[in-house]
C-alpha cells in the first residue's frame, strides 16, 4: 500500500506561538563533557539576516530546535555524534542533520553540519567527497570563540548545499 503524502506548507511568520516550547536548543546540558555550542546566522539572497527562521538539528543523541532572532542568529548546544557506521558508500564523518524552516520556504530545507576538527574523517566522507571545495566549505563549521559557527546562506555566492528530502 502506498498512500499519497500530505504536502508541505510554509511554517509562516508566526510559528513561535506553536513551536517555542516543547523542543529546546539544548540537546546536551552546558556542563556535559564534550558539549559544544553551535551558533550561526541565516542569510537571505540579499545578504540580510533571516529573523523568522527555525533551525532543527538531528542526531542519534537527540534533536535540537532554535528560532532565529532579529539578527538571524541561532545557537544549539549538543555533543559531537559518534562516527556513523559504514554503508555501501563509505564511512560518514560525524555530522548533524539540519532542517531549515522559514517564512518564504514552502518546504523545509535539509542540510548537514560537519565538524572542523575531523579532517581525516571529513576527507573520507562520501557526501563531502561528492562536492567541490567551495560547496564543501558551506557544510563544515568553523571554530569560533570556544564553540562552532555554522552560517546558513539560502541564496548567493555562498549558498549552502541543500539535499533532497
Amino acid at each position, binding site marked *: *500500500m*502506498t*498512500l*499519497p*503524502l*500530505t*504536502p*508541505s*506548507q*510554509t*511554517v*509562516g*511568520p*508566526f*510559528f513561535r*506561538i*506553536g*513551536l517555542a516550547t*516543547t*523542543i529546546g536548543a539544548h540537546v546536551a546540558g552546558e556542563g556535559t563533557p564534550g558539549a559544544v555550542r553551535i551558533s550561526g546566522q541565516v542569510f*537571505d*539572497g*540579499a545578504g*540580510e539576516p*533571516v529573523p*523568522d527562521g527555525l533551525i532543527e538539528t*538531528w*542526531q*542519534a543523541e*537527540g*534533536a535540537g530546535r532554535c528560532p532565529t532572532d532579529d539578527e538571524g542568529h541561532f545557537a544549539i548546544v549538543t555533543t559531537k555524534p559518534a562516527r*556513523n557506521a559504514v*554503508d*555501501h*558508500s563509505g564511512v*560518514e564523518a560525524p555530522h548533524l*542533520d539540519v*532542517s531549515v*524552516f*522559514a*517564512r*518564504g*520556504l*514552502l*518546504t*523545509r*530545507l*535539509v542540510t548537514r553540519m560537519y565538524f572542523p576538527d575531523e579532517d581525516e574523517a571529513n576527507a573520507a566522507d*562520501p*557526501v563531502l567527497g*561528492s*562536492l567541490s571545495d567551495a560547496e564543501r566549505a558551506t557544510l563544515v563549521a568553523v571554530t569560533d570563540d570556544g564553540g562552532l559557527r555554522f552560517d546558513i546562506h*539560502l*541564496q548567493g555566492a555562498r*549558498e549552502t*548545499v*541543500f*539535499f*533532497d*528530502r
Partner: protein
Amino acid sequence: MPASSRSVHPPNDSPAYGSSLLRAPKQPLRVHPGRLGELTAPLLAGETIGTLDHDLTRQHDGEPLGERITISGRVLDEDGNPLAGALIEVWQANASGRYAHLSDQHQAPLDPNFSGAGRCLTDAEGGYRFITIKPGAYPWRNHPNAWRPAHVHFSVFSPAFTQRLITQMYFPGDPLFAQDPVLMSVPDEESRQRLVARWSLELTEPEWSLGYAWDIVVAGRQATPLDDDAPE
C-alpha cells in the same frame, strides 16, 4: 522516497509567493546518498505534554470567542503504518484572524482567552485530537487585497528525520483557495485537496461543537531511496 511522492510538495521556487524570492535556494537540491531514512532521534518524554495541551479552548479563565471545533485524525506513513508517539504541534489565528504574536499587525481584536497553540502525542493508532475554535481568514501583503484562507498550522515531529513535516490544514468550501499562493503552490489539485479537512458528523458533538477529520501522511520509515542507484 520515490520522485512521484516528492512531487506532491510545492517547489520552493514559487514566485507567486513573494517571500520565496530571496529565500528559496537557487541551486538544485543535491541527491542525498542514502542513509537519511535510517537516522532517528529519541522519542520525546511523554511527561512534557500536559493532558490539556490539546484543548485550545481551556487555556484561560474564560472561553475564547468563535465557532468551537474538534479536529481529529490519524498520522500514517506512506506504507499505511500509524505513527505512534509523534509530537503534533498546532498554532493558529483567533476567530477574528489575528495571531497572538507581536509581529501580527492585522487590525482585528486579540482574544484574551485564546493563545492559539496546542500540542499532543499521537496514540498507538497514530490518532490525534485537538479542540479549538475555527480561525478567521486574515489579510497579508503578498499581492493587492490578498487574504489567507482560514487554516491551522500543523507540525509533525517523529523520531525519523525523513518524516519531519510542517504544513497547514484548511477548511472545506473556502472561497479563498484559488487566490492563495501558499495553497496553490502545491502543484496538483488532488494533492491540494489533501490539505483540506472533511466536515465529520461523527466528530460533531450535538449541542456543542463542529467536527473536522484530517489524516496526515508522511514519508515511509525505510525511505532509503538510493540503495540500488547510489551516485558513485
